[in-house]
Protein backbone atom coordinates (compact mmCIF):
# COMPACT_ATOMS: atom_id res chain seq x y z
CA UNK A 1 0.00 0.00 0.00
CA UNK A 2 2.72 2.42 0.93
CA UNK A 3 4.62 1.78 -2.27
CA UNK A 4 1.66 2.51 -4.44
CA UNK A 5 1.13 5.84 -2.74
CA UNK A 6 4.61 7.02 -3.66
CA UNK A 7 4.21 5.99 -7.25
CA UNK A 8 1.05 7.97 -7.56
CA UNK A 9 2.66 11.29 -6.56
CA UNK A 10 4.39 13.50 -9.14
CA UNK A 11 8.06 12.56 -9.53
CA UNK A 12 10.28 15.47 -8.44
CA UNK A 13 13.88 14.86 -9.49
CA UNK A 14 16.43 16.14 -6.99
CA UNK A 15 17.79 19.31 -8.57
CA UNK A 16 20.27 20.30 -5.90
CA UNK A 17 23.39 18.46 -7.20
CA UNK A 18 22.83 19.75 -10.70
CA UNK A 19 22.42 23.32 -9.52
CA UNK A 20 25.59 22.95 -7.46
CA UNK A 21 27.56 21.86 -10.50
CA UNK A 22 26.04 24.54 -12.73
CA UNK A 23 26.94 27.23 -10.23
CA UNK A 24 30.48 25.91 -10.03
CA UNK A 25 30.80 26.00 -13.79
CA UNK A 26 29.35 29.48 -13.85
CA UNK A 27 31.86 30.67 -11.29
CA UNK A 28 34.71 29.06 -13.22
CA UNK A 29 33.80 30.74 -16.47
CA UNK A 30 33.19 34.07 -14.79
CA UNK A 31 36.66 33.99 -13.27
CA UNK A 32 38.40 32.62 -16.34
CA UNK A 33 36.94 35.18 -18.69
CA UNK A 34 38.93 38.28 -19.39
CA UNK A 35 37.40 41.23 -21.10
CA UNK A 36 40.69 43.06 -21.01
CA UNK A 37 42.29 41.65 -24.10
CA UNK A 38 39.81 43.38 -26.35
CA UNK A 39 42.54 45.62 -27.71
CA UNK A 40 44.80 42.69 -28.43
CA UNK A 41 44.63 41.98 -32.11
CA UNK A 42 44.74 38.32 -33.02
CA UNK A 43 46.14 39.07 -36.44
CA UNK A 44 49.45 39.96 -34.87
CA UNK A 45 51.63 36.95 -34.22
CA UNK A 46 53.64 38.12 -31.26
CA UNK A 47 57.06 36.70 -30.54
CA UNK A 48 57.03 34.08 -27.81
CA UNK A 49 59.26 34.28 -24.79
CA UNK A 50 59.53 32.65 -21.41
CA UNK A 51 60.49 35.86 -19.63
CA UNK A 52 57.54 37.92 -20.83
CA UNK A 53 55.52 38.32 -17.68
CA UNK A 54 52.20 40.11 -17.40
CA UNK A 55 52.95 43.41 -15.68
CA UNK A 56 52.19 43.52 -11.97
CA UNK A 57 51.03 47.11 -12.15
CA UNK A 58 49.02 47.98 -15.18
CA UNK A 59 49.96 51.36 -16.62
CA UNK A 60 47.30 53.93 -15.97
CA UNK A 61 47.23 55.30 -19.47
CA UNK A 62 48.19 53.22 -22.43
CA UNK A 63 48.10 53.30 -26.16
CA UNK A 64 48.15 49.94 -27.88
CA UNK A 65 49.68 49.80 -31.33
CA UNK A 66 49.17 46.60 -33.27
CA UNK A 67 51.79 46.24 -35.94
CA UNK A 68 51.57 43.26 -38.23
CA UNK A 69 51.06 41.79 -41.65
CA UNK A 70 47.78 41.38 -43.45
CA UNK A 71 47.57 37.66 -43.93
CA UNK A 72 45.50 35.21 -45.92
CA UNK A 73 43.68 32.62 -43.84
CA UNK A 74 46.43 30.19 -44.81
CA UNK A 75 49.00 32.39 -43.15
CA UNK A 76 50.72 33.82 -46.19
CA UNK A 77 51.23 37.53 -46.27
CA UNK A 78 48.89 39.58 -48.39
CA UNK A 79 51.35 42.44 -48.61
CA UNK A 80 55.09 42.42 -48.22
CA UNK A 81 55.09 45.44 -45.92
CA UNK A 82 53.74 45.35 -42.39
CA UNK A 83 51.10 47.88 -41.37
CA UNK A 84 49.72 49.32 -38.18
CA UNK A 85 46.18 48.08 -37.51
CA UNK A 86 44.54 51.26 -36.39
CA UNK A 87 40.76 51.32 -35.84
CA UNK A 88 39.94 48.83 -38.58
CA UNK A 89 42.25 50.57 -41.00
CA UNK A 90 45.69 49.67 -42.19
CA UNK A 91 48.23 52.45 -41.91
CA UNK A 92 51.81 52.36 -43.11
CA UNK A 93 54.43 53.20 -40.47
CA UNK A 94 55.57 56.22 -42.43
CA UNK A 95 52.00 57.63 -42.50
CA UNK A 96 51.16 57.03 -38.85
CA UNK A 97 52.00 60.56 -37.62
CA UNK A 98 48.47 62.09 -38.08
CA UNK A 99 46.87 59.18 -36.20
CA UNK A 100 49.33 59.54 -33.33
CA UNK A 101 48.67 63.28 -33.21
CA UNK A 102 44.98 62.55 -33.00
CA UNK A 103 45.47 60.06 -30.16
CA UNK A 104 47.54 62.63 -28.36
CA UNK A 105 44.92 65.35 -28.79
CA UNK A 106 42.15 63.09 -27.53
CA UNK A 107 44.19 62.08 -24.48
CA UNK A 108 45.08 65.68 -23.73
CA UNK A 109 41.46 66.70 -23.95
CA UNK A 110 40.30 63.92 -21.65
CA UNK A 111 43.10 63.80 -19.09
CA UNK A 112 44.80 67.19 -19.23
CA UNK A 113 47.71 68.82 -20.96
CA UNK A 114 50.68 66.90 -19.58
CA UNK A 115 49.22 63.45 -19.85
CA UNK A 116 51.41 62.51 -22.77
CA UNK A 117 54.41 61.92 -20.48
CA UNK A 118 52.52 59.27 -18.55
CA UNK A 119 51.16 57.33 -21.48
CA UNK A 120 52.78 53.97 -22.09
CA UNK A 121 52.82 52.87 -25.69
CA UNK A 122 52.36 49.11 -25.89
CA UNK A 123 53.94 47.89 -29.05
CA UNK A 124 52.50 44.62 -30.25
CA UNK A 125 54.63 43.81 -33.23
CA UNK A 126 54.59 40.69 -35.34
CA UNK A 127 57.56 38.42 -34.79
CA UNK A 128 58.68 38.65 -38.41
CA UNK A 129 58.70 42.42 -38.79
CA UNK A 130 62.10 43.94 -39.60
CA UNK A 131 63.52 45.69 -36.56
CA UNK A 132 64.14 48.84 -38.58
CA UNK A 133 60.40 49.34 -39.02
CA UNK A 134 59.70 48.77 -35.33
CA UNK A 135 62.31 51.39 -34.54
CA UNK A 136 60.71 53.68 -37.08
CA UNK A 137 57.36 53.24 -35.31
CA UNK A 138 59.00 54.05 -31.97
CA UNK A 139 60.58 57.12 -33.50
CA UNK A 140 57.24 58.32 -34.88
CA UNK A 141 55.76 57.93 -31.40
CA UNK A 142 58.64 59.89 -29.92
CA UNK A 143 58.09 62.62 -32.48
CA UNK A 144 54.47 62.79 -31.38
CA UNK A 145 55.58 63.19 -27.76
CA UNK A 146 55.22 59.71 -26.31
CA UNK A 147 58.14 58.65 -24.16
CA UNK A 148 57.29 55.37 -22.41
CA UNK A 149 57.37 52.19 -24.39
CA UNK A 150 56.72 48.58 -23.68
CA UNK A 151 57.35 45.69 -26.03
CA UNK A 152 54.85 42.90 -25.82
CA UNK A 153 55.44 39.20 -26.24
CA UNK A 154 53.38 36.11 -25.57
CA UNK A 155 54.53 34.45 -22.41
CA UNK A 156 55.43 30.85 -22.82
CA UNK A 157 55.30 28.30 -20.06
CA UNK A 158 58.73 26.84 -19.58
Amino acid at each position, binding site marked *: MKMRKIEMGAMEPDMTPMIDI*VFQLLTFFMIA*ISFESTKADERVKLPVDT*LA*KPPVVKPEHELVLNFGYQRHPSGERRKSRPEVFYNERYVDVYDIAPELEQEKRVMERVHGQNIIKDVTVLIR*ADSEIPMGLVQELIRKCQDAGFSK*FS*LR*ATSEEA
Partner: protein
Amino acid sequence: MKLQNRLSGPTKVQIPMVPMIDIVFLLLIFFMLNLKIVSPEGNFNINLPISAPTAAAAELTPPEIKVSMVSDRQGNLIQLTLGSKNLGNDEMAFEQLNKEILKIIGRPGNPLAKDIEVEIDADYETQYKYVVKAISKCTGRLDPGSKQVARYVEKIKFAPPHKPKA
Protein backbone atom coordinates in the same frame (compact mmCIF):
# COMPACT_ATOMS: atom_id res chain seq x y z
CA MET B 1 -12.14 28.15 9.52
CA LYS B 2 -10.59 26.99 6.34
CA LEU B 3 -8.29 29.98 6.14
CA GLN B 4 -7.11 29.61 9.67
CA ASN B 5 -6.34 26.01 9.06
CA ARG B 6 -4.14 26.80 6.10
CA LEU B 7 -2.18 29.49 7.90
CA SER B 8 -1.54 27.62 11.08
CA GLY B 9 -0.55 24.29 9.57
CA PRO B 10 3.17 23.60 9.03
CA THR B 11 3.24 23.84 5.22
CA LYS B 12 6.37 23.35 3.10
CA VAL B 13 7.09 26.46 1.04
CA GLN B 14 8.02 25.58 -2.53
CA ILE B 15 10.47 28.03 -4.10
CA PRO B 16 10.01 28.04 -7.87
CA MET B 17 13.38 26.81 -9.11
CA VAL B 18 12.70 26.71 -12.82
CA PRO B 19 13.16 30.46 -13.62
CA MET B 20 16.37 30.56 -11.63
CA ILE B 21 17.79 27.54 -13.42
CA ASP B 22 16.83 29.10 -16.74
CA ILE B 23 18.72 32.27 -15.93
CA VAL B 24 21.71 30.42 -14.55
CA PHE B 25 21.95 28.32 -17.70
CA LEU B 26 21.75 31.44 -19.83
CA LEU B 27 24.56 33.05 -17.87
CA LEU B 28 26.59 29.87 -18.13
CA ILE B 29 26.21 29.76 -21.88
CA PHE B 30 27.05 33.45 -22.17
CA PHE B 31 30.27 33.07 -20.24
CA MET B 32 31.18 29.87 -22.07
CA LEU B 33 30.82 31.50 -25.46
CA ASN B 34 32.72 34.58 -24.39
CA LEU B 35 35.65 32.65 -23.04
CA LYS B 36 38.67 33.07 -25.23
CA ILE B 37 41.59 30.87 -24.45
CA VAL B 38 44.60 33.04 -25.10
CA SER B 39 47.99 32.66 -23.61
CA PRO B 40 48.82 35.63 -21.43
CA GLU B 41 50.86 38.46 -22.78
CA GLY B 42 53.58 40.28 -21.02
CA ASN B 43 56.42 42.67 -21.31
CA PHE B 44 59.96 42.50 -20.02
CA ASN B 45 59.80 44.92 -17.15
CA ILE B 46 62.67 46.92 -18.56
CA ASN B 47 63.51 50.54 -18.91
CA LEU B 48 63.66 51.52 -22.52
CA PRO B 49 65.67 54.74 -22.54
CA ILE B 50 65.48 54.85 -26.27
CA SER B 51 68.53 56.74 -27.32
CA ALA B 52 67.96 60.35 -28.19
CA PRO B 53 68.79 61.07 -31.78
CA THR B 54 71.55 63.51 -30.77
CA ALA B 55 74.90 61.93 -31.46
CA ALA B 56 76.67 64.03 -28.84
CA ALA B 57 74.68 62.57 -25.97
CA ALA B 58 75.46 59.08 -27.15
CA GLU B 59 79.16 59.80 -27.19
CA LEU B 60 79.21 61.14 -23.65
CA THR B 61 78.00 57.93 -22.07
CA PRO B 62 79.28 55.01 -24.05
CA PRO B 63 77.21 51.91 -23.33
CA GLU B 64 79.14 49.25 -21.53
CA ILE B 65 77.59 46.31 -23.28
CA LYS B 66 76.78 46.27 -26.93
CA VAL B 67 74.87 43.46 -28.58
CA SER B 68 74.97 43.52 -32.35
CA MET B 69 72.83 41.50 -34.67
CA VAL B 70 73.63 41.02 -38.33
CA SER B 71 71.05 39.54 -40.63
CA ASP B 72 70.48 38.70 -44.27
CA ARG B 73 67.90 40.40 -46.47
CA GLN B 74 65.13 38.07 -45.36
CA GLY B 75 65.77 39.06 -41.77
CA ASN B 76 67.31 35.77 -40.67
CA LEU B 77 69.99 36.14 -38.09
CA ILE B 78 73.51 35.60 -39.41
CA GLN B 79 75.58 36.67 -36.49
CA LEU B 80 75.09 37.71 -32.90
CA THR B 81 77.96 39.55 -31.28
CA LEU B 82 78.53 40.78 -27.76
CA GLY B 83 81.09 43.56 -27.80
CA SER B 84 83.67 42.08 -30.12
CA LYS B 85 82.89 38.46 -29.33
CA ASN B 86 81.14 36.48 -32.02
CA LEU B 87 78.53 34.17 -30.55
CA GLY B 88 77.11 32.55 -33.67
CA ASN B 89 73.52 32.58 -34.85
CA ASP B 90 71.68 29.64 -33.32
CA GLU B 91 69.98 28.83 -30.05
CA MET B 92 73.36 28.28 -28.42
CA ALA B 93 74.39 31.81 -29.28
CA PHE B 94 71.55 33.22 -27.22
CA GLU B 95 72.39 30.91 -24.31
CA GLN B 96 75.98 32.07 -24.58
CA LEU B 97 74.81 35.69 -24.54
CA ASN B 98 72.85 34.94 -21.37
CA LYS B 99 75.96 33.49 -19.73
CA GLU B 100 78.20 36.35 -20.81
CA ILE B 101 75.76 38.91 -19.43
CA LEU B 102 75.72 37.06 -16.13
CA LYS B 103 79.53 37.15 -16.09
CA ILE B 104 79.48 40.91 -16.60
CA ILE B 105 76.95 41.70 -13.89
CA GLY B 106 78.43 39.22 -11.40
CA ARG B 107 75.27 37.85 -9.85
CA PRO B 108 71.56 38.35 -10.51
CA GLY B 109 70.17 41.46 -8.92
CA ASN B 110 73.61 42.87 -8.18
CA PRO B 111 73.07 46.46 -6.97
CA LEU B 112 76.35 47.51 -8.57
CA ALA B 113 75.03 46.37 -11.92
CA LYS B 114 71.91 48.50 -11.69
CA ASP B 115 73.27 51.15 -14.00
CA ILE B 116 74.60 48.79 -16.61
CA GLU B 117 72.96 49.42 -19.90
CA VAL B 118 72.81 47.12 -22.88
CA GLU B 119 72.66 48.63 -26.29
CA ILE B 120 71.09 46.52 -28.99
CA ASP B 121 72.28 47.30 -32.46
CA ALA B 122 70.28 45.31 -34.97
CA ASP B 123 70.27 45.45 -38.73
CA TYR B 124 67.23 47.01 -40.36
CA GLU B 125 66.03 43.65 -41.67
CA THR B 126 66.54 41.63 -38.50
CA GLN B 127 63.28 39.99 -37.55
CA TYR B 128 61.69 41.35 -34.40
CA LYS B 129 61.62 37.92 -32.75
CA TYR B 130 65.42 37.77 -32.64
CA VAL B 131 65.57 41.19 -31.03
CA VAL B 132 62.97 40.19 -28.45
CA LYS B 133 64.98 37.05 -27.77
CA ALA B 134 68.15 39.05 -27.27
CA ILE B 135 66.32 41.44 -24.93
CA SER B 136 65.00 38.47 -23.01
CA LYS B 137 68.45 36.93 -22.67
CA CYS B 138 69.87 40.23 -21.45
CA THR B 139 67.14 40.89 -18.91
CA GLY B 140 67.35 37.63 -17.08
CA ARG B 141 66.91 33.93 -16.84
CA LEU B 142 64.01 31.79 -15.76
CA ASP B 143 65.08 29.39 -13.08
CA PRO B 144 63.78 26.02 -14.23
CA GLY B 145 63.25 24.74 -10.70
CA SER B 146 61.53 27.57 -8.92
CA LYS B 147 60.09 29.28 -12.01
CA GLN B 148 61.41 32.55 -10.66
CA VAL B 149 63.06 35.08 -12.89
CA ALA B 150 66.62 36.01 -12.04
CA ARG B 151 66.98 39.60 -13.19
CA TYR B 152 70.15 40.59 -14.99
CA VAL B 153 70.08 43.92 -16.79
CA GLU B 154 67.16 46.30 -16.54
CA LYS B 155 68.17 48.97 -18.98
CA ILE B 156 68.02 48.21 -22.65
CA LYS B 157 68.39 50.71 -25.39
CA PHE B 158 68.39 50.56 -29.12
CA ALA B 159 71.09 51.94 -31.31
CA PRO B 160 69.92 54.38 -33.97
CA PRO B 161 68.34 52.40 -36.80
CA HIS B 162 70.41 51.32 -39.76
CA LYS B 163 69.56 51.95 -43.36
CA PRO B 164 67.96 49.05 -45.21
CA LYS B 165 70.25 46.97 -47.38
CA ALA B 166 69.96 48.14 -50.96
